[in-house]
């Protein structure tokens, strides 16, 4: 059966997926707020709109991280084997990649949530 979710990718770069999502989310929040607060006078929507939009971005980012975590979990064989994954085999190398990616997804998830907290509590471009 063909899987909807992409097949396992043989690459080092998948390791960095979740942190990259964090980076995009973080820069998106920073840039959106910086531009809005600088140009608020010439814009005809309020800060609430920015917060909502960034809230949406946060949800998207979290979803992407969860997807990355799922793929990593799958690559880790759904937890079928325990670390340290130090056997000289392709299988252990794959399991290691899966596990490390899963851990990074967790960290990135927390970091995205951290970055989103100010959106709940701060309601204007106070300087």
């Amino acid at each position: 059966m063909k899987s909807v979710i992409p097949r396992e990718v043989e690459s080092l770069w998948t390791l960095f997926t979740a942190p990259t999502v964090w980076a995009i989310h973080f820069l998106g929040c920073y840039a959106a707020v910086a531009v809005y607060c600088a140009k608020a006078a010439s814009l005809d929507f309020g800060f609430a709109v920015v917060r909502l939009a960034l809230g949406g971005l946060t949800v998207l980012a979290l979803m992407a991280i969860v997807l990355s975590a799922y793929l990593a979990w799958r690559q880790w064989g759904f937890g079928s084997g325990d670390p340290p994954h130090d056997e000289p085999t392709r299988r252990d190398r794959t399991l290691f990649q899966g596990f490390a990616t899963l851990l990074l997804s967790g960290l990135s998830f927390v970091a995205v949530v951290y970055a989103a907290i100010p959106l709940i509590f701060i309601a204007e471009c106070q300087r």
Partner: protein
Amino acid sequence: MVELGNFSPEERAAQEERLRSVWKTPGGWRYWTSVNNSEIGLWYGVTAFAFMLFAGLLGLLMRAQLATPNNDLISADLYNQAFTLHGTVMMFLFAVPIFEAVAIFLLPSMLGARELPFPRLSAFGFWSFLLGGIFVCGSIFFDSAPNAGWFMYPPLATDKEYAGIGADIWLLGLSFIEVASIAAAVEIIVGIMKCRAPGMRINMMPMFAWYLLIVAGMILFAFPPLIAGDILFEMERMFDWPFFDVSRGGDPLLWQHLFWIFGHPEVYIVFLPAIALMAMIVPTFSQRPIVGYSWIVLAAVGTGFLSFGLWVHHMFTTGLPQISLAFFSAASEAVAIPTGVQIFVFIATMLAGRVIFSVPMLFGAGGLAIFTIGGLTGVMVALAPFDWQAHDTYFIVAHLHYVLIGGMFFPIVAGIYYYFPFVTGKKLSAAWGKLAFWLMFVGFNLGFFPMHLSGLRGMPRRVFTYPEEFGWNLFNLVSTVGAFIFAAGVATFVIDILRPKPKTSGRNLNPWSAGTLEWTNDPQESWGMRSVPIITSRYPLWEQPDLQANIEAGRYYLPDAKSGKRETLVTSVLDAEPIQCLRVGGVSYVPMISALALGGVFIALTFHWWIPTIICAIITLIAIVWWLWTGTAQIPEAEKVDVGLGQELPVYVSGPASVGWWAMFITMVGDGTAFASLIFGYFFYWTVHDDFTTGAPGPGALWPMVALSLFIIAWLLTIVARHLNARGHPGCRLALAAGIFATVAACLAGLAGPYFHGMDPTSNVYPATVWVIVIWTVVHGAVGIVMQAYCLARNFAGRMTTEYDQDIRNVTLYWHFMAFTAVITFAVLGLFPMVSA
């Protein structure tokens, strides 16, 4: 299972003779033309260490001045130069270079390679660093050192009355050293990804390699914004382009952004390699594998990423919107998670093993304790309201020294104690080491802990003296006493290194009973690995019996050097399967000449000596082209060579399989980051002004679009040339020649926009920004022309053929980035003013 080689003693002796002659370090004064990683790493390390001692003396001078109130030991101006140089030298000439040194020295042995892929690039980096460092440090003896603080904030640092030539020395001297750092990053990334011993899959890599891979990646994204900032800064100082001058639309805050986008990751760039040393030391002295290998990878990668989300926490008091501060505050707290993970991993490893408390462990553990205190005050100052109180006080001085000395200096000393036998074959003294440790540990805490308190009592940093009645006297006196005790500890350590050591009986390559591969190397031989082993474990010396004997008996790969050339293995990224026998550059003057000439460019620029600048630039260009022409993409005598164990591998590969392609790719990622920083500057000015063009004419849309089209044509012609070359079609030369013409036209069209619209870069920040971005793109166009011409010449000379096409593959890759740069440049400059109007 491959069958290992088996050689008679006579065969082995002959192999060793050949290997020895190929990897021989030249004698006499030609010693300095050596490019071997063990020499370059050693010189690099010793130089960085010497700069550290110099900067330490400046620190002592400052402490002596601050010992008592109203002291007049040194003048305010000398004090300003001393603290600026202290910070600058410690960060740029010690903290970053020492890790490059350690990496260049250790990595090949840890990875099981004979050499990193670009030894001459390492040599170039070292000579650049040496020259730039002497230039920057020497300035204080002519009373012209930079004096505006190590982060050189404008408008103070752009004020020519206050900051004389010192600011230029800082900007140009350090830009030069940043080039060296990026060179090292390229070397390290390609080395770790492609030069590991066969079988060393990514789940087998030594921890040190994981950390260094991340750190080198961070350098690629952190240093270029500072280079972009340096360009803007120097244009303002040299030609009065008002990037940071508020009266003409500039804004000093842009410098702060660019500086700290570099400056904060920088802290982790120096911290992670030091922790990487700990990750090698702790398992050895716990006599067991590290607990939580994957968690360390999480910590390294996580810290690497998150550290880029922290830069504004240096700017909490600049009046940015509070929500922006909150984002950075959140990220600053988040980074404590991966940092904590790595410390817990070390503790867990120690708990799970039997700890031997040797000198390296003392320094390591002491450093971690100090670092943890610095980390905790870091969590405090990451909270914006606390930072508003503590900003620019001695609390910050205390915090940053706890972080850097605990997180970087102590582990480096631990590393030197640990690896000293690896370098020289002899251990340092345990008794001296313990004395040095306790002097340093006690002296450090006595020196820096009171600074927290003087800071909380309001003592600002960077004051050269203070009145008696403020209540800071005792803290300062104690700090000074502590600083001198600390210095006595450092002196003890230095004496221990320098004192003559008794001859050791017998040969013990692995005095600490470590498990990692580097300890198989014999410091008496310059070939590194006698034969490149097959790795099946994270701690091969512990878990692969007979490894040492088999390596030394030449039973693994590349046991011989029949070609008379320096060779190492290239393996695949994930599973480390052998794919190429790489020939690396040997002894040569050319890296030194290139570095000295490039240094001449930067030094001459500092003093506005235009003619010498141009002469040095031409020498640099000739030297680099000569270097490439004679040293890279050499057509081999045979397509494949025997690498031992019955395997034959290609010598020449091109495209993404080759190390050169990767080096180009990585360099261009860094280059792209610098370009992105300039574009960030453009939009930054757009946000700070209601009308960012302030009515000044723009470059129009016509010329930028013409330039864009011509650059695209030149790019397409380069791609066509590559395809024609691959088919052996003579039209390749025609396409390259046409490409050169198109690029020349594109550069001229690019300049035509701002030129014909009379944009005066000194009048306002808008024309200045447009000019600087156009010039950036045109300079890249000029480099593109040199590359196209180079390929054309190589083709005519028969050095680039259908089969051997590395040159044009790499040049095409450059042109992909060039095209991308041109699209962004001309779309932004030509079209954005219309959109925003």
